[in-house]
C-alpha cells in the first residue's frame, strides 16, 4: 500500500498506524501523529486503519522560538 509519510512516498505492508510506526522504525518515545489532517492520539494508533494514499504526519519535539 502506498502512503505519504511526512511528505515522502512509502510502500508499506502495515494496515494500522502503530504497525506503520514499527515498520518504518519510528522508535522515538515522543511522537505526535496525524492522518489526513486529523490528530491520532497514541492510544488510538492500534485501531487507526490506513488506506491507500493516506497522508501521515509523524512529528517530534524540536527547538523553537
Amino acid at each position, binding site marked *: 500500500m502506498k502512503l505519504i509519510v511526512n511528505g515522502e512516498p512509502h510502500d508499506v505492508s502495515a494496515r494500522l498506524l502503530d504497525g506503520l510506526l514499527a515498520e518504518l522504525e519510528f522508535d522515538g518515545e515522543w*511522537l505526535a*501523529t*496525524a492522518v489526513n489532517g*486529523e490528530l491520532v492520539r*497514541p492510544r488510538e494508533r492500534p485501531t487507526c486503519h490506513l488506506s491507500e494514499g493516506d497522508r501521515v*504526519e509523524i512529528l517530534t*519535539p524540536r527547538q*523553537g*522560538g
Partner: protein
Amino acid sequence: MLKLYDTELMSRLLLGTAQYPSPATLMDAIKASGTKIVTVSLRREMAGGKSGDGFWSLIRSLGTHVLPNTAGCHSVKEAVLTAQMARDVFGTDWIKLEIIGNHDTLQPDVFALVEAARVLSEDGFNVFPYTTDDLIVAERLLDAGCKVLMPWCAPIGSALGPLNLHALRSLRAHFPDVTMIVDAGLGRPSHAVTVMELGFDAILLNTAVAKAGDPVAMARAFATAVDAGYTAFHAGMLEPRDVAVPSTPVIGRAVFT
C-alpha cells in the same frame, strides 16, 4: 509575579530554544537567563530516527515550563492541528499561536489568528497569540478567549527593536490589566529595557540570544535588562523636560563677587 493564565512565575523573560551553536550552549543560556518558560516546536521525525527524544530529554531536565509554538503554519487548519499535536506530546494546554501571513516579513495573518484563537480557546487551550501591535486585533483576540497577548515590536529575527513606540504605548494604555509579552524583533538588551519601561509584563526572545557572540552572557544581559525596565516602570520615571533643572540646591550657594 508574572501571571500567565493560572500560572504565576518570578521570571519575566521567555526564551526560545532554536539556533544555538550547541545543545550545551542552549542549556547554559537558559540557566543564565533565569527563565522559567522556554519555547519549543514540533517538526517531522525521520524514519528510523529518535532525534526529538534527545532534545526533549534535555529540556525536561531543566524543569521549566514549555510553551509549544505553531511556527511555520499558514492557515487556521494547520495551526489548530499543530496545537493539538503539541498538546498530545508536551502535555500542556499552552500554545504560542503563530500563523504567518507573509514569507518575507513573517508578519502574522491576524484574521486567521483570531479565528484559530477562538477555535483553540473553545477547545480548552490557553492561547498565547503572536500578533502585531494593532489595537483592534488585540481586542478581537481577547474576545476570542485569549488572556495573554504577544505583540511584536519588529519582524521576527530582525533585531530592529521597538519600531512603533506609540502603538505599544497605546496597547498598554488600552489593556492595563491584560498580560502582554513583547515577542519578536528585539535585538539588544536596551530594546528590552525600553519595552519593559512602557509597562509590558515580559519579553520573549530567541535570535538575539542564540546568535550573539556569547549567548550565555547575552542571556544574562537580557535578564538584567528585563529586571531593570520592569523595576524602573514601577519606580515611577521622571518625564523629559525641555529646560535644564539644577540637581544641586541653588539656595545656600556661595557668592564670590
